[in-house]
């Protein structure tokens, strides 16, 4: 029996855990990669950059490369690496995320970046430190290089029909 490997997009998943409350969450990205081997390498590359954005309280437990066309297949790697961003030591709760918006070609999709350090953003807005901003720029560069958005194509907009010739107010 031979299995035909599906083509892109593959999905890279990070499983992150709060080491204090032991609550965890996962974040996933679509990868424009040809197979599981390359996807695994790319996920690990992205994971290393993602760790640089996390405070030590949060730990990246495992990464996974998968493809929805081949369920339950794909390599999983146990990393169990704590975040490496020290900052001022404060962190937001694990249910607080920094909402990112990925854009391109007229399409957009949100990405919730969990494990936000306290000195990077608050209710007043985002005010990242230089160290965090540098790590974020590297993460964004890797996103733009390896990741894609998977979107439903827009429907062609139908021309508008105006049946009313004129409206006269008396």
């Amino acid at each position, binding site marked *: 029996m031979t299995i035909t490997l599906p083509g*892109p*997009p593959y999905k890279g998943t990070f499983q992150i855990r*709060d080491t*204090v*409350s032991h*609550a965890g*969450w996962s974040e996933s990205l*679509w990868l*424009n990669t040809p197979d599981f081997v390359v996807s695994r390498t790319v996920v690990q590359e992205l994971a290393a950059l993602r760790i640089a954005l996390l405070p030590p*309280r949060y730990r990246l437990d495992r990464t996974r490369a998968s493809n929805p066309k081949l369920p339950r297949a794909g390599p999983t790697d146990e990393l169990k690496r704590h975040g490496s961003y020290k900052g001022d030591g404060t962190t*937001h*709760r*694990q*249910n*607080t*995320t*920094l*909402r*990112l*918006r*990925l*854009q*391109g*070609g007229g*399409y957009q999709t949100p*990405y*919730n*970046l*969990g494990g*936000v350090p306290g000195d990077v*953003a*608050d*209710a007043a*807005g*985002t005010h*990242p430190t230089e160290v965090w901003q540098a790590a*974020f720029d590297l993460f*964004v560069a890797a*996103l*733009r290089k390896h*990741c*894609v*958005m*998977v*979107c*439903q*194509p827009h429907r062609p907009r139908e021309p508008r029909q105006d049946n009313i010739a004129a409206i006269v107010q008396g």
Partner: protein
Amino acid sequence: MDITLTADTFVPEQIGRSLSVRISGAGAKTLNGTQVVVPVDTTHCYTNKPIAVRSEVRPGGRLNLPREPIMVTIEQVLAEKLATRKRGWGHSYRRARRRNRPRG
């Protein structure tokens, strides 16, 4: 749209009045079914409802064909704002006192 029946159907009392009739056996399938018509004489009536009468058009709801998702290159990543996101603890938020309880 004018409809011509094969037999005398309407009685004089019905002419000029709005009627709900059930049409069957028409060549154009979209014409079959319950229509509100106004009889003009015993065999002719008309309806204001726009009806497609092409024989290859079938009646029914709007069909949405599944569209194959496309891959779009990421050109820009914007950091928008802090947001809260439901995580764990079932399908509902915990009560405010429990939600705001300091943990860890």
